[in-house]
Each structure stands twice: as structure tokens, then as C-alpha cells.
């Protein structure tokens, strides 16, 4: 019998140094999350497991060789950022990014070996903005897409849902899936006219064989809990009942919180509990309770820990 929830994380994630002080994607993010989980009433239900370093073979299923070399060379050369000052790096960043991308792989192995069913990877750097050949918005490797490819190629999954509730659109996930039928990317995010990264319009549904496998649900600035709950119940669930995913990956970002200045959305901490409950419900309906969540954004340190704890309580059905 596996633990109700398994968290995959590692102290080495703190070693991805984004230059200190004012950079929002700081190591402290994971520390406040750990503290909130340790203080949580559900801490006893959580098991912990280690990630592994994502092998180049799996990174290369998502990213170009050119980008892998460019990233590795940049850190070895001692550069402090790559392509854009948002994307701060240190000497260890390439290795830590490989470890971040590998958390999903370790989680999938645990699920497929029957050792766990409900996994949450608490990792950094995040991934959903990373494109196949370029970093964006603090993201270097697209952790969710690397995990999806691993699940497809190693375990034969044919209908992978990636659901993204980060306040920002996961442009890198959409790019990876928009022309194929085997993945379904659904994202609720702040409207791209007002929000980074300026992508994720509602009229983008996928192309060619992937037509109909992208569902962007942008919200206007100021939107909050009621709009999200309505989308989950009235729009997304019927789509999933029709599509019947055989694996679920959640890009779990917490920067749409009302206190987080990274978006104009006004989610409450309690909404993340609701989202956790809904994810649990989807897993029970479609994938025999099996679900893999991967941390994306969430930058307001005063609420990030509680938001993640609320999501975890929801995932546990508590």
C-alpha cells in the first residue's frame, strides 16, 4: 500500500542561485513550502522520495541539442544569465535543472512500479515557459513535457493530460503538444493581453493532428475563485469525460494568488485546496487515482507555503 502522497524533492534544488535579493524565483520558495508542510496537519500522510538526474536522452526528446550545449556552456563559462536577465544562472544551474526535470521521471517510475500513486514534485527551476530551444521566464527545461515524453515512450501512455493552473500560460507546454494528438494541454491563466508571457489566447486549439488538444481558458485581471471553479466543473470536466486521459500531469503554479504581484488574478489560498480536491477527483475518475503534480510558479513568500499546503490537503482528500 503506497503512501497517500509522495513528495519528490531535494536539498540540491536550493543550489540554483538566481543572484539573490530581488529575483522572484529564489531558493527561499522551497524553504517556505517545506516549513508549511512540516507544520501541516497532514504531514504524517506524506512520504518523501528522491529525484534523479534526467538523462540526456529524455531532455533531448523535448529540447534541441543546440540548447542543451548552449545552456551547459553558459554555466561552465561562469555567465550569470542566459538570453535574458530574467534567466539567472550559476555554475550549478545546468545540473540542478537536470535534477528538476528528473523529478517527474522518478515519480513516474514510482507510479508505474506501484510504489506510489499521488506524487508532487517540489522542484526548481520551474519549467512551463521553456521552449524546445530557448529559455523563458526563469524556466530552462520543460519539466512537465519531459515527464510526459517519458510516460509516453517508456510506459506507452497515449492520452496524457497536462493541466496547468499557474497564473501564466505555459507557452512551452503548448508548443510541445499543439500539433499532436497524444497530449491534451489545458491551461487556466491570466489573459495574455495583460500578462506574461503574452501567449495562450482562447482561439488557439492546436494544429494538424493536434487540432482540439489545446484548451486555453484565459481569465481577465481581477478574476478569482468563482471563475476558476466554474471552469473546472462546467468546461473542463466535460472535455475530460469525452477525451478520457490515461495519465495526468499537473503544472502546479501558485502565482495567481491575490497577494502575488506576478499576476492580476485574485485567487484565495482556499482555492488551491479546492483545486487539489478536483485533481484527486479527476485522478479517481480517469487514471485509477494516479496523478503527477510538478511545481511551477508562486513567488509571494508570505502565501506560497500555505497555498501549496492547501493544494496538498486537497490532493489528500482532506
Amino acid at each position, binding site marked *: 500500500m503506497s503512501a497517500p502522497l509522495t513528495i519528490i524533492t531535494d536539498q540540491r534544488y536550493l543550489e540554483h542561485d538566481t543572484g539573490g535579493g530581488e529575483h522572484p524565483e529564489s531558493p527561499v520558495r522551497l524553504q517556505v513550502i517545506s516549513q508549511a508542510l512540516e507544520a501541516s496537519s497532514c504531514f504524517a500522510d506524506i512520504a518523501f522520495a528522491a529525484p534523479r538526474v534526467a538523462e540526456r536522452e529524455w531532455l533531448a526528446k523535448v529540447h534541441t541539442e543546440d540548447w542543451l550545449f548552449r545552456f551547459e556552456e553558459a554555466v561552465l563559462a561562469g555567465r550569470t544569465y542566459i538570453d535574458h*536577465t530574467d534567466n539567472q544562472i550559476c555554475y550549478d544551474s545546468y545540473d540542478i535543472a537536470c535534477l528538476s526535470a528528473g523529478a517527474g521521471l522518478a515519480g513516474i517510475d514510482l507510479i508505474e512500479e506501484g510504489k506510489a500513486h499521488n506524487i508532487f514534485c517540489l522542484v526548481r527551476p520551474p519549467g512551463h515557459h521553456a521552449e524546445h530551444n530557448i529559455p*523563458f521566464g526563469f524556466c530552462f527545461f520543460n519539466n512537465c513535457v519531459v515527464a510526459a515524453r517519458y510516460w509516453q515512450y517508456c510506459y506507452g501512455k497515449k492520452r496524457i493530460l497536462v493541466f496547468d493552473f499557474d497564473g501564466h500560460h505555459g507557452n512551452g507546454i503548448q508548443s510541445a503538444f499543439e500539433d499532436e494528438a497524444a497530449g491534451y494541454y489545458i491551461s487556466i491563466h491570466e489573459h495574455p493581453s495583460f500578462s506574461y508571457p*503574452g501567449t495562450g489566447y482562447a482561439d488557439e486549439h492546436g494544429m494538424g493532428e493536434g487540432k482540439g488538444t489545446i484548451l486555453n481558458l484565459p481569465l481577465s*485581471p481581477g478574476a478569482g475563485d468563482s471563475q476558476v471553479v466554474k471552469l473546472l466543473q462546467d468546461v473542463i470536466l466535460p472535455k475530460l469525460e469525452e477525451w478520457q486521459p490515461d495519465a495526468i500531469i499537473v503544472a502546479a503554479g501558485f502565482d495567481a494568488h491575490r497577494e502575488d504581484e506576478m499576476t492580476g488574478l485574485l485567487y484565495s489560498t482556499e482555492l488551491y485546496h479546492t483545486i487539489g480536491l478536483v485533481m484527486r477527483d479527476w485522478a479517481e475518475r480517469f487514471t485509477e487515482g494516479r496523478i503527477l503534480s510538478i511545481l511551477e510558479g508562486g513567488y509571494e513568500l508570505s502565501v506560497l507555503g500555505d497555498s501549496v499546503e492547501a493544494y496538498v490537503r486537497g490532493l489528500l482528500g482532506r
Partner: protein
Amino acid sequence: MYISRHMTADPVTVSSAMSLPEARALLNDFRFRHLPVVDENGALLGMLTDRDLRSAYPSSVLTDSERRLVYEKVEKTTVAEIMSTDCVTLRLDSTLDDALFLFDRDQMGALPVLDGERVVGVFSIRDLTTAYKKLFGVGEKGSMLIGIDDDGSHGIMTRIVNLLEEQNIPFTRLMRVYDERKGNTIYLRINTFKIAKVYSLLEDAGLAVKRA
């Protein structure tokens, strides 16, 4: 801003003697909606649209015998008989704005682009939206738009630019939009994820960012 950079160059054209079934097959094969009709020197004679063709073909409410009669007539009809000859055109040195005004005035779907008399391109309303999308950075990955109240104070644009450049915050567009009823706004397209930092920078300098 010139049409020549955004048009479809060397477009497929047809002769005025072509039959309607041939022209229809061409439109269907290439998924076009507009075909310039030209003479042997490539000079514009008219435009043929999918709407012109639909009007020429029999209506679905006709009986079979009526439809057959119309089909027989259509097969003998040439492009010259149904094309529009009163064409609005663009030139190679026309601008996107010229095209916008023409589309807005005439509700056309596409316009031929001429070099002298010769057709050298077609510029569609889709080309126009693509060009303006690029011009304004809509959908540009890694960017977002911020609105700032324009209080009309002297040097406000310079202040904004200086603040951003001093802090090495990349931006690609700065637009001032006048609106007598709702107030003037300065729009700024920034290319960074560090949004909170930009908000603080602008607000600490006394600028009013339009937030949710």
C-alpha cells in the same frame, strides 16, 4: 510599413477566358478566396472571388432539372463574365495603413497589389492582421502589456523610458493613446517576467499603473 513586405508575392492568377469550373478547382486546390484576373502581360483585368463563384453556381433549393440547366450554363461561362472589374488596388509603395483604410471602407477580403499595371501580389485582410500583430507585439512570447495613466505632465514619456533603461528592463513598445472619455493611457510592452519589480519601479516614481 510597406505592403510589399507583407503581401503574398507572385500570386496565382487566371485569364479572363478560363471557365468557371476550372477557376473553382483552382480556388479549392489552393484554398484561396481571391484570384486576380490578368491579361497576357500580367495586367489586372478584374478580381474573381469565391463569393462570385458561389453566386454563379446553382442554389441548393432548386430542383434537379433546374440545377442541371444552371450547371450547363456555368460550364460555358468564362471568368470574364462574372469577375469584378471595378477593382480597388494597392501599389508596391502602399502602406499597411492605406490597406487598413481600404478594407475598412470597402469591406473587401483581399486586394491586388500592382507594379504599374502588372499584378505582383495579393494582400489579404489576414495579411493585415498578421502584420499589425507583429507591429504591436501581440502574442510575442515573453512579453506583456502594462497600462499607465497619462496625466499629461511634461516629460512623462521620457521619465518612463529612463526608468526602464536605467534598470535594464527590456521593452519593445511605448504607445500613447488619447481617449477624452476614459482618460489617456500610455501602453508599455515589457519583455520580462519580473513584473512586480516593474510595478514598484513605476509606482515609486509616482506613475499610476492600471492594475486589476
